[in-house]
């Protein structure tokens, strides 16, 4: 997030697009609801489903899955046409405005209505509401990013924020809500094939040499493969060994059957997890790890807040925390000419967990200036939001107050491309996927928490009431859902909360895994898969 969670209460308008916030980020959803009650904030929801937040919104735009960039471009078109832009901001802080403005002259609300299914008048209202607000915040999740045009969608939203001067001030911003407790931290730490820790490109000689000096070894300058590119590389035999720490790609990856085949193909698979997950079942070696309650360390939340994780209980049996496991494997492997890494890789089993973790954190804060001012002592009372350049710095609640890392922020001309797979006569419905309130991701944790499992009603597919009638499907009937990649059968939930032609499935359930159906086509820039749009057909079984 460019901004912080606390600032939500001061937004005059909140645009929520591709995020079912009250279910996937309940505490952020709660702040949005409070903003409506206490600050009279207007919420604009753009989502193909009538999510709970719609009850609190001024306007609901029900765009077709995969049409987001058309919707956003049309909003930008209206803002420019009606001269509602923040001219000072555009002049002082941005570049490429005129070429961007030229690129959307044709993107009027009528054009967008044809693509998105959203009435042109609603697009006009949304654009004017957003542009006229003093503080406008944009909030999104995978509904924006998990598309073959995911990067473009985000850039389109950035255009909207820049046009209205909403990037670089309190109660505004461009705010991706991170779906997992430490997905922000894992990215920050350089668990990304193109970046060393702190988003320092691995292909840049200067960066790499700095790390080579710090770590006392030679580093490869060749960017690695993304998780989505690893799957085909395994199938082609280019990747022979894989170590998976705490992930369940067999359930979470689009076209999951493909992922399973790939992991079966590799010569050697190590899976480190707290349960024997669907992925661990395929492994050659399974390592028992510690849950968050059993370790020391830090997580970084969606608002860049670095917070201490503390050990409350011991891991069961002989399970070990992941850091100890990595250390122990590392110290057993010879590399280079028998060198040992200078930092962090000593066998530290006799050290207390906290000393071990804080030692690694201290190394991190020396390699990444944004964390330079953070240490475990400072985190004792409360978390700190990066960037935090020195130990007197209080942390940063919102980014880009005075400038952007690249100087001026650049508008990007985005042309709407649409999803890779569209409904046709064979597969006439669009399937989109997401989470429900009670379950979490692939269900490894929530489905083993009996209280949660008792409250949850299990897998389902939402089908529009008119579509269901046409197909002679009643609420609760079992249906067979097929895509070009797989099939699952599960109960239908007949509802008017989803538009005709669109269906929705949560992806938590191994017994009806939505990702057997989804499309693994990738965004060309960031290689994110198009899990949010694919074409399916539905057959009544009962």
């Amino acid at each position, binding site marked *: 997030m460019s901004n912080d*969670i606390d600032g939500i209460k001061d937004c005059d308008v909140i645009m929520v697009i591709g995020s079912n916030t009250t279910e996937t980020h*309940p505490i*952020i959803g709660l702040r949005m*609801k409070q903003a409506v*009650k206490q600050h009279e904030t207007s919420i604009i929801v753009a989502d193909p489903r009538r999510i709970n937040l719609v009850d609190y919104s001024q306007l609901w735009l029900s765009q077709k899955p995969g049409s987001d960039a058309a919707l956003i471009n049309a909003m930008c078109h209206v803002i420019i046409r009606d001269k509602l832009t923040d001219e000072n901001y555009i002049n002082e802080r941005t570049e490429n405005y005129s070429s961007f403005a030229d690129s959307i002259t044709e993107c009027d609300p009528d054009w967008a209505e044809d693509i998105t299914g959203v009435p042109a008048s609603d697009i006009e209202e949304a654009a004017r509401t957003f542009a006229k607000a003093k503080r406008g915040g944009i909030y999104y999740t995978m509904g924006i990013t998990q598309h073959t045009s995911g990067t473009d969608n985000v850039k389109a939203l950035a255009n909207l924020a820049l046009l209205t001067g909403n990037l670089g001030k309190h109660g505004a911003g461009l705010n991706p809500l991170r779906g997992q*407790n*430490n*997905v*922000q931290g894992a990215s*920050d730490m*350089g*668990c990304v*094939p*193109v970046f060393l*820790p702190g988003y320092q490109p*691995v292909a840049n000689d200067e960066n790499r040499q700095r790390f080579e000096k710090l*770590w006392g070894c*030679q*580093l490869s300058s*060749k960017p*690695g493969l993304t*998780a989505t590119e690893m799957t085909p590389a395994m199938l082609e035999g*280019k990747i*022979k060994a*894989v*170590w998976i*720490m*705490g*992930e369940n790609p067999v359930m979470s990856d689009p076209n999951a059957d493909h992922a399973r085949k790939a992991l079966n193909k590799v*010569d050697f698979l190590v899976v480190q997890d707290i349960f*024997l997950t669907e992925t661990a079942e395929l*492994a*050659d*070696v*399974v*390592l*028992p790890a510690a*849950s*968050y309650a059993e370790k020391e*360390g830090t*997580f970084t*939340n969606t608002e860049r807040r670095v917070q201490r994780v*503390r050990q*409350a209980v011991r891991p069961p049996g*002989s*399970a*070990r925390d992941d850091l100890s496991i*990595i250390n122990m494997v590392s110290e057993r492997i010879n*590399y280079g000419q028998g060198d040992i890494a200078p930092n962090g*890789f000593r066998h530290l089993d006799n050290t207390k967990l906290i000393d071990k973790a804080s030692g*690694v954190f201290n*190394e991190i804060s020396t390699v990444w200036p944004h964390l330079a001012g953070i240490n475990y002592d400072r985190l004792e009372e409360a*978390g700190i939001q990066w960037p935090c350049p020195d130990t007197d710095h209080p942390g940063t609640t919102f980014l880009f107050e005075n400038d952007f890392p690249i100087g001026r922020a650049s508008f990007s001309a985005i042309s709407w491309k649409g999803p890779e797979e569209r409904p046709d006569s064979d597969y006439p419905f669009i399937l989109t996927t997401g989470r429900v309130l*009670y379950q979490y991701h692939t269900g490894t*944790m929530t489905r*083993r928490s009996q*209280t949660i499992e008792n*409250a949850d009603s299990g897998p389902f597919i939402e089908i529009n009431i008119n579509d269901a009638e046409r197909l002679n499907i009643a609420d609760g009937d079992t249906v067979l859902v097929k895509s070009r990649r797989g099939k699952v059968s599960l109960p239908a939930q007949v509802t008017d909360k989803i538009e005709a032609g669109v269906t929705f499935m949560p992806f938590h359930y191994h017994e009806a895994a939505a990702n057997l159906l989804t499309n693994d086509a990738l965004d060309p820039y960031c290689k994110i*898969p198009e*899990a949010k749009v694919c074409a399916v057909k539905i057959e009544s079984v009962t």
Partner: protein
Amino acid sequence: MITLTINGREISVSEGTTVFEAAKELEIEMPTLCYEPRLKPYGGCRLCIVEIEGIPKPVTACTTPATENMVVNTNSDYLYRLRRTIVELLLSDHPNDCMICTRAGDCTLQELAYFYKLRENRFKGETRKHDRIDENPFVKREMDKCILCGLCVRVCDEVQGVNAIDFVNRGFNSNISPPYEKDLDCEFCGQCVAICPTGALTGKVWAGEGRQKNVKHTETVCGYCGCGCNVTLHTVRDRVVRISSKRDSHNQGWLCAKGRFGYEFINKNDRLKTPLIRRKKGGELEPATWEEAFDLIVSRFNSIKKKYGPDALAGLASARCTNEENYAFQKFFRAVIGTNNIDHCARY
């Protein structure tokens, strides 16, 4: 600014500050069962009554705005007797089953009974019989322990915005209930459970687990979504028995159903407890020692790297793991193996 005097001490506060808040700034404590700084003033329990010069009868401090030159007294024998009687009245219609109550030791009503030494009760008589069992999965509702402070109703309305419960009936039959006195059917965030001052609302998942004795509290961060809510793990030996969250956290103490009640997986029997190895291709996974597992990993990683080069190896890190673990994992692949084939689930 407004200047007033409380118990002979002067204090200046901003306009709109209540007498209760002003007293709190002076660290003057008053008993209360319904005050909650995160909610609007309510004045339901009457325990924070104070005497104000010029006002004939005691008034509730939590609903009285401070005014210029106000002179307040929070402590007198008269106030003590009034407050003690209020608690005595509440207890006259309370099961007093603290021995088997989940909230024993963490109950404001119990604390007040202790403070006012209320063993006998002058108002003994008929008690309410709210013995309806609510079958919802999360919240144990024992309405005969309810003191009608309204905190649950207010938090559900003001914070969660769900309005799943409200007061029903009048007088002696007053009760907090979902519509039509059916089972609770809501988002089960449990804010009501967290805010309840008695044992009326508890987590079903807490039942029969440790209450206070030998319970250790650990401050940490929730392991689910990216909100990163601060949580307190209540543990007995190596078992998590409850999760709560502190009011002064960035999430203001609010949690969701998963964060508050979804911890049973930690204690689950089918946790992996020992390394497993597939000794023959196509065979079963069998228990192994750590040394055996490490030896196999090291020899296979080394031989694959030697034969096919470092880019034949790849690692998937985890958004479940800590920063330190993720840093070490990428460093292992980059510095030890020599490849940038390292990624995690940011795209899923």
